[in-house]
């Protein structure tokens, strides 16, 4: 267990009679980049919502940093050092880009001046310095995704959950995001990310977990996963039914 920062232990989530996540277990080591993949409806985002406290698991345990977190609220999970981004970006639209990032930074400081310093530094690291005074709602989708990234990074997370951070971006933008993710990992953070872009996933992930219809189909290194016939059938190649 040593080295595991996140441990998903037989987690299930039912919505009424609908089983969204069924008996999933896997672990994430510190400083790993783990990809969570699977077709639409596989339960990836539901699992993220369970981990970050937005919904609570029906059964099973989620252990983060040696503490059970399945009953915590989202803000408590965040203050423990786990931050997330959203598949559909959630900019604080009428606030400026700088203010958005400052709000992230306020989770580690109470002083506005210090929050501003952290925010400025963080904007610089994702290349948004020129947009600091613009309202967040006015940015393009690519810049909004970068803003989300800067905002969660300002909370100085030990672990980062990224929900399709590259979705809707072009190749250049995707590459830019991947460079930032690698840097973040090199500074010591652990990253789990949901992604459909297999090129991005195989390029950056140390480990991949594949979900299908709420169940874990497989996990392994990118090489193993791309060769796994079950994964190919369910997801990558479409299989015989395609």
């Amino acid at each position: 267990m040593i080295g595991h920062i996140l441990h998903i232990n037989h987690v299930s989530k039912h919505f009424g009679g609908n089983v969204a996540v069924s008996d999933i277990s896997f672990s994430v080591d510190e400083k790993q980049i783990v990809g969570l993949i699977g077709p639409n409806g596989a339960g990836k985002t539901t699992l993220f919502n369970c981990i970050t406290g937005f919904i609570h698991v029906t059964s099973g345990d989620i252990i983060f940093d040696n503490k059970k977190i399945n009953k915590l609220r989202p803000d408590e999970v965040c203050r423990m050092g786990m931050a997330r981004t959203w598949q559909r970006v959630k900019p604080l639209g009428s606030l400026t880009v700088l203010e958005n990032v400052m709000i992230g930074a306020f989770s580690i400081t109470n002083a506005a001046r210090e929050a501003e310093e952290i925010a400025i530094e963080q904007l610089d690291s994702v290349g948004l310095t020129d947009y600091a005074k613009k309202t967040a709602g006015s940015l393009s989708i690519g810049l909004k995704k970068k803003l989300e990234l800067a905002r969660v990074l300002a909370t100085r997370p030990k672990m980062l959950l990224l929900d399709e951070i590259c979705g809707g971006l072009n190749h250049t933008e995707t590459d830019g995001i991947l460079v930032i993710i690698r840097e973040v990992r090199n500074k010591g953070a652990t990253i789990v990310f949901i992604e459909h872009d297999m090129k991005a996933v195989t390029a950056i992930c140390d480990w991949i977990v594949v979900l299908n219809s709420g169940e874990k189909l497989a996990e392994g290194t990118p090489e193993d996963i791309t060769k796994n016939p079950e994964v190919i059938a369910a997801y990558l190649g479409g299989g015989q039914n395609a």
Partner: protein
Amino acid sequence: MLIAITAGIASVLPIVTGENPYVIGVMISVLMMAALSSAWNILGGYAGQYSFGHAAYFGAGAYTTMILISKFNFNPLVSIVAGIIAACIIALITGSIVFRLRGHYFGLASIAVAEIVRLSALNFDFTGGAQGILLSDVSLWGLDLNSKNPFYYGMLLVLVVTLGITLYLRTSKTGFYLQAIREDQDAAASLGINLSFYKNKALLISAALTSVLGSLYAVYIRFIDTSAVLDLRLSIEIILTAIIGGVGTLWGPVLGAVLLVPLAELLRSNVIGDALVKHGIVSETSGLGVFLKENLAHAHVLVYGIITVLCILYLPKGILGLFRRAK
């Protein structure tokens, strides 16, 4: 800075206007509505939680103060503090229930809570029921509480304090957090913001300030009943003032009050209609003259309503929004 200048100008206004009781009366109404609307703005404008039940906190202050002074002969200042405590208790109960709800449901629930408070005051004996409470005599430090001046400065003081708190909030962690909650509650929670804690904090500040104004108003008028201090109409007037002036801005609610309260007063006293007739522009006996003198005086609520609708349609960011260029 601007607050200090405005307060300075406002504090000499009674002297400039020659202490005309009618004018001072209107100015007290302006200051009170400006402060009420600014207090509401902390919760509604910054945290984005539109309370339609702020009359409950105004009434809590007014009733607590009146009961303590008239029945138990309390010092007015002590009874104002007691009013704050009463309002905060109601706010805490309200907050713990209604902040679980989001969006329109929060607004509806806040009306329900305010109506419960109103109906309670109407039916309990110690609140005077439908008769209300009359205060025959009150004194504090030998101030002439029959004059309007102490209340003018009292209202001004509360307004300055409210604006000061708003200004402080804007530059502090709490203010940023409230705005984050207004923009997107899920995003706010995911960034480590304890939603119910900060919403309740905003509600408590807002309710406490509102109750002080209720207390001042009660001692100023010396008579309260549920229709004067607990009515839904009051809650709505507070919101409209903020919306028309500019929600979520420091000066919007003040601007709204400065424009709307005198306007309502003008319409109510029908100054315009009277003037047109007096100067012979419109004959008193003509159809229009009769309309202006008789009907328009009764139609001030209609005119007020039309102006409100026009403002909402054409100035969605309030009058202050006109002067602000988009970033």
